[in-house]
């Protein structure tokens, strides 16, 4: 879920194609607007409805997008995630877990 509603591109309200300069510019604008209490800046749209936008979230988003690897992940989620995860979170999966015996333990689940 975290990548869905906290996706840096959503927090900043920009497309995954945005250039680095555009990201910085948008973040600086949003931080200014939040500081002065602009209504329009206080929320942002997500596939799960509007969320509160804080200046911490904006700073974290822009910092994430400065890192090439984190940006890649964010782009991936921004492009693929919404439909897939929404479907998954609504319907409880029905298939049996067919993993081989001992797998769970190997996966490091408790204990």
């Amino acid at each position, binding site marked *: 879920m975290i990548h869905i509603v906290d996706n840096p591109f959503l927090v900043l309200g920009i497309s995954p194609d945005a250039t680095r300069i555009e990201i910085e510019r948008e973040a600086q604008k949003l931080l200014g607007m939040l500081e002065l209490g602009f209504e329009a800046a206080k929320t942002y749209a997500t596939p799960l409805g509007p969320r509160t936008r804080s200046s911490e979230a904006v*700073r974290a988003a822009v910092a994430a997008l400065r890192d090439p690897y984190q940006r890649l992940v964010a782009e991936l989620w921004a492009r693929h995630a919404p439909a897939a995860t929404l479907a998954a979170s609504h319907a409880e999966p029905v298939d049996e877990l067919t*993993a081989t015996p001992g797998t*769970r333990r190997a*996966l*490091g689940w408790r204990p």
Partner: protein
Amino acid sequence: MAETPLYVGIDLGTTNSAAAVFDGERVSVVRNAQGATVTPSVVRIDKQGRITVGTRARRFIEQDPANTAAEFKRLMGTERAIEFPASGAKKKPEELSAEVLKALRQDIADQLGVEIERAVISVPALFELPQSAATSEAARLAGFQRVELLQEPIASALAAGWRADGDGAGTWLVFDLGGGTFDASLLETRDGLLRVVGHDGDNFLGGRDFDWAITEHLASQLAVVPSRKNPDHASALRALRLAAEDAKIELSRGDRAQVTLAQPLVIDGQDVEVDLELTRATVERLCTPLVDRAIEVCVRLLQSTGLGPGKLARVVLVGGPTVMPIVRQRVAARLETTIAEGHDPMTLVAQGAAIYAATAGLDGRAAHQSQTPGRQVWLQYPAVSSDLTPHVVGKFVGQSDEGAPAKVKLVRSDGGWSSPEATVAPDGTFLTTVTLLARRACTFEIEAYTTTGDRVPVSPSQITIVQGLTIGDPPLSRTLGVALANGHVQVYLERGAPLPARRTFTHHTVETIARGSSESVLRIPIVQGEMSQAHLCRLVGTLDIGGDVVKDTVPTGSPVEVTIELDRGGRLAARALVPIIGQVFEHVAHLLVPDAAPEALDSAIRDLRRQLMDLRTDAFRHGLTQVIEKLDRLEARLSEAERDIDAAHGGDADAAQRARRALLDVDATMADADLARKWPELEAASRQTAIGASSTVGLHGTEAERALLQEVLAAMDQARRDKDAPELERQMRLAQRLSSAAFNRTTEAWEWYFEDAASEMSRARDLPRAQRLVNDGKAAIDRGDTEELRRVVKALWNLLPEDSEARKRGFDSGVR
């Protein structure tokens, strides 16, 4: 009329300090009363209690060492007070630093005629939180109203990058070898934005180690050899060290130097004449291992970011010791790159700090608020912008007689550009964009008009934006978290997280806090470091909740919401909310660097030696050459630490701190080596993880989770090929997290957790309650109520005890 802003940067160094000012276009270094650009960080207090700072104080180091303090920066954040017997004064390291800051502040006032109240002060990148807190305190004592701390490598990079020709794009390294610390930082400039790719360093490697190496060499040639272990030999060694320092500087140019002391040294009651010759070759031979140790750090940094040698655009050298030819040669050769020329290694950090003050909008003159008449407007804009067209956001507040502003226009003072008219919204807000001139400070006049086109005077009436290289929010240099009762760390803020930052997590108490009992204390240890095991991290503070302060008894398993907050300067605040009694606790206790008693160090090093032996035997048996090499390096570091511990026995607090740090590093590296030894096991486990994760994520994962797992699996392959154990562990954790996320979505997962927890019920702290929970759980499974089952399982986990050994390693943490 707005005056030009004045931004101040201060480099508060171990040996020398410097200050610089920036006016938006030019940086200038502040000269002190002696006309020098650097001021020695030396403080002297004489019989009358008079305080002298800088060059005049340094003259007394030899004559009157007891009343002259130097290198106190290395003790910042410790409890140790420095005594000045002549006057009977006792000063904490931050109080001495404050004296240096006061002197610099006075120099700025003398030279520029301005009282400075705000500034940026640089600190080493690897400063721990207590050390940063002490620096802020020093600034407060020196009369600064507000300071921001900036990591030294970022400061040097900013200063070097600011002057770079063209776009200066590429990856570069700042090699900062100071008097007491070494920092290596890898930076990248792209699109006018400076980014820290990574940094590494050694908090206890610096020019003074070079001096000691030379001193020890000289000492070994004397008729009576003085020892650092013996407090009585301290004064002889000090005299020798000053001579060594001079000879070292002389040998940066010449080939030979004579080390002669006017007075014979008195060692064990004997007069010992000092008349020795030192050659450049000898000094280079003595210093090479230390230079190499710094280069090792750089190589490690380059490797960790996947950058091979020869891929660096350039290296910027910072710090006095980098003037030595041997340093320049070896760095250039080993890192296969060129050294950036034209920077003053002594003041670059201060210059960068001044530029950063502009970026942070921290004008040195706090009181400077031009009260022009007119409608009040609040403005938000970047004081420094790499973007040529940044946004300006504003809001009109208050009332005035001239009518409400409806349109706003910004006009650049060179007359070359003006913004389109922006409409003011009913709530007084507006948003516009300005166009800057490259690498210049641009001033804009703010023009506001009513609906009828009448000009409304506004206050402030103009703003200044500087175009140039910028740096985003300063990154956190070390991961910060809370040690848990099971000996692990709950990470709150990852290294590199932008500051300021705040995170909250809910923990649960592992024991009861009885009201009124002063013995029952719930401890929340705050640790810093990159390891997932608490004992390998450094304890930077604790938040204690005692039975004497709670309003009511807090039973085991109660939730505690812990919030950790860091400001831009890296100052820490922590808060714990205990919902069931509705109390908030925010007193973080003893934010200090732990004391390093020589006896404790002795026993620590004995333990480490024993472990090292075991590891070595094992590595030989399995023929793990890589591990053996690693262990050899550790051996060498231990021997070094041993020398420091000797000096610690002789009363050298600084050496004691250094030894403590070295032992921690060795301990951490040993854990890595241990990991490498378990390689075959780890490799097998990683394959199982991969199979398990593929199957779980394949069945229950979302499309994005599947895509991410592919990447993680590829990274695991790579780590297996590189035989990189820590990386493999990290990727395994990622894969496990992905599959847990997918698995936890199934009902069956919780049934399985439930059965597992139920099977350990006999160990539960509150057996009747556990029994009830197990019954509830069974009923929930029958009803198919997953939500309830999840609640039951979590409650059960809270009743199961933590291992006491593990808890000790977690700094006696009382939460999980």
